[in-house]
Structure formats: C-alpha cells, structure tokens
C-alpha cells in the first residue's frame, strides 16, 4: 500500500503529509528569469517602428503602389503617345479603345489616353495642393487657438463659424469672380473653404492633449514650447490628421468634378478627371467607355487614398502593434 492509505483521497491529506509523500517524485528545476526576457526586439524609434508596421499591411502597400503609379503616369503618361491632349482629329471621333488610341477618342477626336493623364495631372494637383494648404492653415490656426485658448480661441472660432456659414458654392463663385476661372482659383477656393473643418479638428485635438498629464510631465521636465509641439503634440495628432488629409484629397477631386460639371471648374481644352467624366456622361449610352475610364481612375484613386490613410493611421498608433 502507498502513503495515501490512511486517507480516502489525496485531497483530505494535510499539506505537510502531501509534501512528504511528494518528496523525491518531483525536482525543482527553477526559473531563469533572465533567459525568459532575453529574446526581445532591438530598440527602435517611433518612426522606424511605424514604417515596420506599415510594411506589414499589404492593403496599404498596394494602395501606396497605386497612388505612386498614378502620380508617375500623370507625369509621364502623356508623353507615351504621339497625340497632344488638346489636338482635335475630326476624322477619328468617338473611336473605341484600339491599338492606336489606347483609351479611344472623344467626340472631338482627341486621344483619351493623353487626356486621361493630363486630367490626372490637374486633378491630383488640385487635390494634393488644396489638401496641403488646408492642412497647413488648419494646423496653424487651430493649433494656436487650442494651445493659447482664452480670448484668442474665442475670437478665432467665432470667425470660423461665420465663414463656415457661407455656402460652399457661393464662396467658390465669389472667388471665381475675383480671380477668374482656372486651376489656381479652384485650389484657392478649396483651401479657403476647407481649412475651417481642419482647424476645428486640430483645435479639438490640441485642447484634449494639452491638458493630459504627459504634457504636464514634459513641461515639468523643462521642455520648451517647440519641443512640446513637435515631440508630443504632433506625433499624437498625426494619426487623425493623416486620415483627414487622405479624405481631403479625394474630396477636392470630387468637388472639382462637380464644379466642372456645372461649368465652374477647369475650362476646355484643359481637362481633369471630373471634366472627362462629365463629357463622357453626355454620350454615356452610346460610348460608355468615355465615362467608364475616368470613373475607374477617380474611384480607384479615392479608394487607394482612403485605404492608405487607414493603413498609415494604424501604423502611426503604437497601441495597434501586434
């Protein structure tokens, strides 16, 4: 019989007895805490870490590739064919895509491949430049309002509310009346109307962040204002700002398309993706490719921007690291 014989089950045995019974059956092998912590990743900074996380995100990488491809094509795509984007060819109107005219021709016989990439130039220029202008204005005004607070914040925010109450279309028409129509007035119009929401967003973020204890901790360590802004405020706002920026680019491209449709956008023979879609829609039932081609580029560009923005936001937030 074994040591448990006096008891109906092992659980009833007193602990001392149980330990005695177990003696010799088990070996204490110990724990090497140093070894268990030994295999860790090397020290890396915030931006490098963000890049590593972005690289792992396939969708964001594909989106980035699409954006880069479109930008390259916008720069050099027009030069790949011998046709000028504004040269009419009345003997070859409304040709479907073929080996000579890769994307076909429009109602005036202009080569759609050349026009598509010329349109890409205009659309991307308007989208990117106006988004960057909105961002810059928004950060400066919203950042100051949030950081300084008080009377300055009060006055600036009331001004933005008044500006925001003017309808977008009236604002654009007013700007067009002063500066004429064209790419530069369009960019100006988007920048002037779009910075307000950006400023509000930045102000809210700054307000929320500046009262957090880590900001107070940085100040109590003697951090200068520029260090507070560039080391603490901006990295903490970067995620939200980048997502907003990637929304603003397609938004500007869309607005431009809409304005072109009502005749306020870029004027022919100059073109843009919106302008192309507008012209294609007029012959949609007969020559659908004239609408489908620019529509495809507008939608894939929008999708790529948004997915890339999502990926960037995730990469910039260390909390989402797996």
């Amino acid at each position: 019989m074994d040591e448990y014989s006096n008891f109906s089950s092992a659980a009833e045995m007193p602990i001392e007895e149980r330990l005695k019974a177990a003696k010799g059956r088990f070996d204490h092998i110990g724990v090497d805490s140093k070894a268990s912590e030994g295999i860790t990743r090397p020290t890396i900074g915030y931006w490098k870490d963000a890049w590593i996380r972005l690289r792992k995100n396939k969708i964001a990488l594909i989106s980035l590739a699409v954006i880069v491809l479109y930008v390259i094509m916008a720069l050099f795509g027009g030069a790949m064919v011998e046709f000028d984007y504004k040269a009419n060819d009345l003997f070859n109107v409304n040709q479907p895509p073929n080996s000579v005219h890769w994307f076909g021709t429009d109602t005036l016989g202009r080569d759609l491949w050349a026009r598509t990439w010329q349109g890409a130039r205009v659309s991307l220029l308007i989208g990117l430049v106006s988004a960057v202008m909105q961002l810059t204005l928004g950060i400066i005004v919203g950042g100051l309002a949030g950081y300084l607070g008080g009377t300055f914040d009060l006055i600036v925010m009331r001004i933005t509310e008044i500006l925001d109450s003017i309808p977008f279309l009236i604002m654009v028409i007013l700007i067009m009346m002063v500066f004429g129509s064209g790419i530069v007035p369009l960019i100006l119009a988007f920048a002037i109307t779009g910075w307000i929401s950006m400023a509000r967003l930045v102000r809210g973020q700054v307000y929320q962040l500046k009262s957090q204890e880590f900001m107070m901790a940085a100040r109590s360590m003697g951090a200068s204002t520029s260090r507070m802004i560039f080391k603490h405020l901006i990295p903490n706002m970067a995620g939200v700002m980048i997502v907003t920026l990637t929304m603003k680019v397609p938004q500007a491209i869309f607005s431009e398309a809409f304005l072109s449709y009502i005749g306020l956008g870029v004027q022919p023979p100059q073109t843009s993706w919106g302008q192309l879609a507008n012209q294609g829609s007029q012959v949609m039932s007969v020559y659908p490719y004239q609408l489908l081609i620019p529509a495809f580029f507008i939608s894939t560009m929008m999708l790529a921007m948004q997915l890339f923005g999502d990926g960037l936001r995730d990469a910039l937030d260390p909390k989402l690291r797996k």
Partner: protein
Amino acid sequence: MEHSNDKYIEVTDLKKHFYLKQKKILKAVDGVSFSIKRGQTLGLVGESGCGKTTLGRTLIHIYEPTAGKIMMDGKDITKVNSKEYKQLTSKAQMIFQDPYASLDTHMTTLEIIAEGMAIHNMYSAKERKERAEAYLSMVGLNKEHGSRFPHEFSGGQRQRIGIARALAIEPEFVVCDEPISALDVSVQAQIVNLLIRLQNELHLTFLFIAHDLSMVKHISDYVAVMYLGAIVEITSSEELYSHPEHPYTQSLLSAIPIPDPRVSASRKRILLQGEIPTPINTPPGCKFKNRCQHCMKRCDAEEPKLKEIAPGHFVACHLFNS
C-alpha cells in the same frame, strides 16, 4: 517651523487661487506653511479635492503661486522666469498620479526616461541611453523593456517608468503626487518600498501626497493633514498616529481599517457629518466648523492658526487656543 536647520524646502503662507467666471474665487490652497529637511519625507494627506495636488504642483511651478513664499535650498523660487524655471526643473521633479495618462504613448520607454536628460543637455546621446537603461533596472524593469511602448506595460510597471523618468534628471526634490493610488494593493507596497530605497540611495527629499494613511505612515518622517486648502495638523508621523489632536485628523485615523474584527468592532469610529464644503467663496471662520463635533462660537468668527501644542506638534484648532 518645527524643523531646525537645513530646511530644503520652506513654504510660507502659500496661496493658490483660481479665478473662475462670475468673479468667483476657488481657494485651492489658502495659506499653507511647512518645511521639509533635506533627505526627509513629508506626507501630505487629506480627502479628495482638499488641494493636495494643487499644492504639490504649485511648489514646482506647474501652477504659479498667487501669494506666499517658496524657498528651495536657500533660494527664493516664488517667482521664476523661463531660464530659472528650467533650472528649477533640473532640481525638482514630479511623479504623477495616473500612470496611464502621464506617459506619452508615442514614445518608447527609453525615450521617455531619457527625455529629461535630453532637455537639460545632460551627457551624450549614447550615455543618456545607457543611463536610461540603468534607471530601468534601478526601478526593477529589464533593459529589454526599453524598446517597448507604454501600453505594453501594466499600471505598476508604468508607474515605475514614471519614477525612472523623474529620477533620471537627478533631482534633489521629488513631489510624489499620489503615486500609488491608481495601483492595486500588492503593487502599492512594492512602489512605496522602491521609493524608500531610492530615497536612501540618492538622498532625495520627498513631498509624498496620498490619501492612504497607512502608506503615508510607512514612508513619511512628518505628516501634514490638509483640509480645504489649509494644513490643520502637522507633526512627526509617530506623534500623529499615536496622538492625533485635531478633530479632523482623529476622524481620518479612525477610518483606517483594522485587519482584526474584534479590535475593529470594539473601536469607536468618528463619523463625520455632511460633505466637504466647496472651496469657492468660503465663509469666514474655521473651515471645518460645519462638520466638527466640538464646534464653538469662536469657530464661526475666527479662523484658527497653526499652534505648537507639544514640541514639534502643530494643530490649527480653537480647542487648543485657550
């Protein structure tokens, strides 16, 4: 006050008032005087909203004092310009209450700890990294933790990072603003023991803010009890716990749980009536009068001043003024 020579911190009649809307004044700290000897710890206790944190923050100029005088190491630091403030931050540091809010989530542990050294241009970049790693191990974390981000740690580990950050600047005086209140009980003892060990190793002077009376007894040489912006009793910690004199201190101490049901049942608890009044536009007289069981006529008219009732034992109560 009671301490003889070598006072590291000496505060005289310090006031911090916040000016609210409609000309209301919130007297968060209203005429506080105390001193701390070099290398010693003053515990500061009181219920929520009594001005403990404001007092701690005013001492190291996170808030500007409204009136009064702060002497640190023989130098008047009541008013500081930005250059003097930076000097002050290299000597006086703060450990924050909330380990979740006080660390920037976008920085790695090493960056957080080394930030103070970088701000004050201490050592070369390589040495800073080495020293930051040394501080990591000093607070009981591993070198390998250095590349991780704050969200990867538990509350106790984060608080250790906060402690390492404050100490990396090599301060002489540290305000510990409830460093243990956000932690669970088993970790509280670890952190307090860590603080005591570091104090002995580095000859630090502490102002230890807490509302846990037994922890304060463990770490403090002297204890000050605060009520509604004023110190009502201040003495050595043995004296305070063995002979509490102010009615408020007595009720506080009677609220400490005793881990023995027989003793606990036989003990007479002093239950306070009513709520802590608001520190906005306080009426004249003793601040504790509406909750005090010994309230006299005199308490309505006159605010009691701190008075030495036994060697080194100061109480602000009219019961001891006759």
